[in-house]
């Protein structure tokens, strides 16, 4: 703030460290006024585009994490054939194959979603697999002695007990998901929060970039909060258990 004041004392139109009026003006321009060219309000279209990509990426990652995590965790045969490729996949830096994705999937939505999935799904799969393997062996024997099939064990015993962990894993990978989203948008997109930031960088438009960063932070914080609230609300049986571990 004081640096901003110092700079503005020398140059009233300094753009690098905007003062309050410039910031408010910037916010007003992107959040409340319609864009002259398209008639949309930029902040909302950007937010909607980014959140849609994020939701697809995180949703696909969560589903595949659950599916493959439970399969590899429960069935040794599946694990021995599936875990090594997942382990190798998780070692590839996703950003390094972004160009390949652009070539293979085009510059549209798919490549951005795939980037997020490649970035976070392997970690979630491995986390889920670990959690399934951590379940006490006695529980599986017990379920079998109640006449359960593998399907019934997966649905009634394993799935409900790894869901809390899935929410935890999602919370932890949201940061990475944002990182991949913004990177992909920065490189090739027509809208999105990351796209806007990197577009405006060319004009040194700090009066919009700073509010955008704050807005992204707020969104990420809200997601984290709501996942935590969901965790508490959905799993009352986790409260103060010592056996189940993993209290939030």
């Amino acid at each position, binding site marked *: 703030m004081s640096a901003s004041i110092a700079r503005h004392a020398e140059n009233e139109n300094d753009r690098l460290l905007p003062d309050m009026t410039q910031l408010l003006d910037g916010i007003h321009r992107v959040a409340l006024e319609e864009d002259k060219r398209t008639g949309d309000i930029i902040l909302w279209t950007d937010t909607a585009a980014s959140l849609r990509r994020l939701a697809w990426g995180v949703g696909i990652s969560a589903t595949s994490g659950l599916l493959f995590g439970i399969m590899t965790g429960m069935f040794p045969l599946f694990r021995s054939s599936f875990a090594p490729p997942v382990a190798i996949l998780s070692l590839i830096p996703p950003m390094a194959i972004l160009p390949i994705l652009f070539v293979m999937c085009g510059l549209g939505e798919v490549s951005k979603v795939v980037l997020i999935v490649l970035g976070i799904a392997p970690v979630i799969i491995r986390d889920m697999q670990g959690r399934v393997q951590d379940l006490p062996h006695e529980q599986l024997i017990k379920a079998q002695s109640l006449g359960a099939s593998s399907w019934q064990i997966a649905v009634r015993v394993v799935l409900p007990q790894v869901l809390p962990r899935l929410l935890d894993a999602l919370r932890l990978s949201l940061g990475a998901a944002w990182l991949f989203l913004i990177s992909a948008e920065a490189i090739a997109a027509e809208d999105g929060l990351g796209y806007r930031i990197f577009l405006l960088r060319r004009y040194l438009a700090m009066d919009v970039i700073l509010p955008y960063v704050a807005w992204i932070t707020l969104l990420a914080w809200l997601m984290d909060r709501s996942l935590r609230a969901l965790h508490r609300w959905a799993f009352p049986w986790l409260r103060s258990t010592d056996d*189940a571990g993993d209290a939030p």
Partner: protein
Amino acid sequence: MSFISIKHLWKEYGNRVVLENISLDIAQGEFVSIVGASGCGKTTFFKMLLGEEKPSRGEMLLHGKRWPLEPDADRGVVFQRYSVFPHLTAIQNVVLGLEFRDAKWTTRLLGRKKNAAMEQAQTMLEAVGLGNNSHKYPHQLSGGMQQRLALAQSLIREPEILLLDEPFGALDPGIKADMHALLISLWQEKQFSVFMVTHDIQEGFALGTRLLVFDRVRNDPHEPDAYGAKIAYDIPLKQRRKWNPA
């Protein structure tokens, strides 16, 4: 033909002999207590009864047929810990066995069937003294209550054999005595056979109709793994409590 018949049973892991040449006949309705020092194969024997481990040599027959290869609903089990599912309430834990039986693919019962199952489960919970705690989660129940719940859960499918692995090992003496009384009355009422592994010899004597003591009879100090455990003593105990199978 006897109910359970075990002939020349061996269990080896590589060169290590765990159980050697065990032969046994067990009548239906027997309450068999299994005691022995740790590492003398009673847990291995228990796992074979459960169907988790297979014998290396010899035969195990149930009703004259080959022993089932996997745990199933004919043999209920209660472990010392982790016997109940932490994510289900007491009554859900008990209903689960019925849902496994009647809802093969949906895995959940609905409507009238569900109500009937819930009623049956509630009766079972009342039988073990948990009638008022049916909607609590296991972590809200004491250790003794959790084991009561585990018993109710195992018995809902009416197994003909109940396998107990140190079921009361973690409980206070007073609660243990209550649990003994409960187990005996359930055993008499529902007429199943019991195998109970315990390291409390008194408990073994007090509850069983037959006591098996596992021990390594032969021992080679130069090669401690060369000989496995056998049944050192097979003691028939008081018969008066035994129910008469039809």
